[in-house]
């Protein structure tokens, strides 16, 4: 589960998305994951936003020009449900880590704090989806390898970096300024978590250097897949 480097990202993106859209099994799994309301819009979103640039321009043009509230809400709801799904997984992960008792003292209380913060993200995102008139995605069933403190901390570092890159990847697609402000407020907290875990596992605090690299939905989805039960 590693993120592609910046140089590889654009060509991989198109390939993975096309495969994802074609791969019925994967698609069904995510659609189930994303919840009934977000499901239809997610498919449309992926095709419109991430297809070949020519197709995408054609597909997204009517949406942009029409500019109706419902159209922009549909995209935002899909993004929020995607984020909600990731936050559900993070919350479940931290819950299991806390229950494992592998961490105590200062690190233990940081882990506990982070888990609680992910939980507040879940609540906020659910509220936002409902406010936009959507149905919040259902909680997925996760599975996480929990063996040693070091392994868990490494995994947490990976998961938080992925989460931060996922929010960063969606920010430019969010239509509603209020939703954007909220996503940014969560985004930097994920970054803080990632940096904190980086210090624990003696990995870089800023693995991408000065400019954090975004990840698109299909990349994140592929990375998350091993953690879905």
């Amino acid at each position, binding site marked *: 589960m590693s993120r592609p480097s910046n140089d590889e990202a654009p060509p991989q993106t198109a390939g993975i998305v096309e495969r994802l859209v074609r791969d019925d099994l994967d698609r069904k799994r995510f659609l189930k994951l994303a919840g009934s309301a977000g499901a239809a819009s997610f498919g449309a979103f992926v095709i419109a936003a991430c297809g070949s640039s020519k197709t995408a321009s054609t597909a997204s043009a009517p949406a942009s020009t029409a500019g109706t509230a419902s159209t922009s809400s549909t995209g935002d709801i899909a993004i929020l449900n995607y984020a909600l799904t990731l936050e559900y997984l993070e919350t479940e992960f931290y819950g299991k880590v806390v229950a494992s008792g592998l961490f105590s003292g200062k690190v233990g209380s*940081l882990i506990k704090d982070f888990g609680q913060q992910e939980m*507040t993200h879940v609540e906020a995102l659910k509220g936002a989806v409902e406010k936009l008139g959507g149905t919040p995605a259902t909680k997925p069933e996760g599975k996480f390898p929990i063996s040693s403190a070091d392994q868990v901390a490494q995994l947490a570092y990976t998961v938080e970096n992925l989460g931060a890159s996922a929010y*960063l990847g969606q920010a430019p697609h969010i239509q509603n300024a*209020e939703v954007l*402000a909220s996503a940014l*407020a969560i985004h930097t907290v994920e970054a803080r978590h990632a940096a904190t875990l980086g210090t624990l596992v003696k990995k870089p605090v800023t693995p*991408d250097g*000065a*400019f954090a690299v975004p990840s698109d939905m299909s990349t994140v989805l592929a990375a998350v897949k091993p953690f879905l039960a």
Partner: protein
Amino acid sequence: MTVNQVTNRELAALEVHGMTRGSFILRGALAAGALYGTASVAPFVSQALAETGGGDAEILNFALTLEYLEADFYTVKGKQVGLSGQAKAYARTFGAEEVAHVSALTAAIKQLGGKPVARPTFVFPVTSESSFLTLASALENTGVGAYNGAAPSLQSKAVLASAGSIVQTEARHAAAIDLLIGMSPTPNQGFDRPLSKQEVLAKAGPLIKK
């Protein structure tokens, strides 16, 4: 990484996603309060609305001033103070990253047809490693709030993507410094509070000599 690489990456990303520019003006934000509660959002929203005349170049110039400040703090003041160990390592890494932000913002402002602000002169009331780190924490956390507060007012998606990329780095710096000085890496809990331009100026202004 050169500025061109950054710019090209954002342009490439735009083409991949094939999305047209959308409006990021704070329309609808007056109905804020869903996630934060109206009390915390209202000052930010009214401030942002008051600033909508400026455009992206003006917002980026504001960010550029902060980045100049951070870059100067780490690369010049850090050396004067004489840091050691982890503080020294962070100052070196983070300082180089702030310098890269300065370059990227300068280029972006020019690309938008704006005129980048000149590098201001700063005065940092810092004499020890301990006071250096305390101020570093304040600066980084202010930087996070400043970007998060200004970003929804940006018109260009490419600029927004770049600002997001930078603010994530600022948040990582903030957390690392906070941990080093025994403070919480998440001072705002689950949601980083956006700061208005006035709030940012109140914090950073006294450090700007001219």
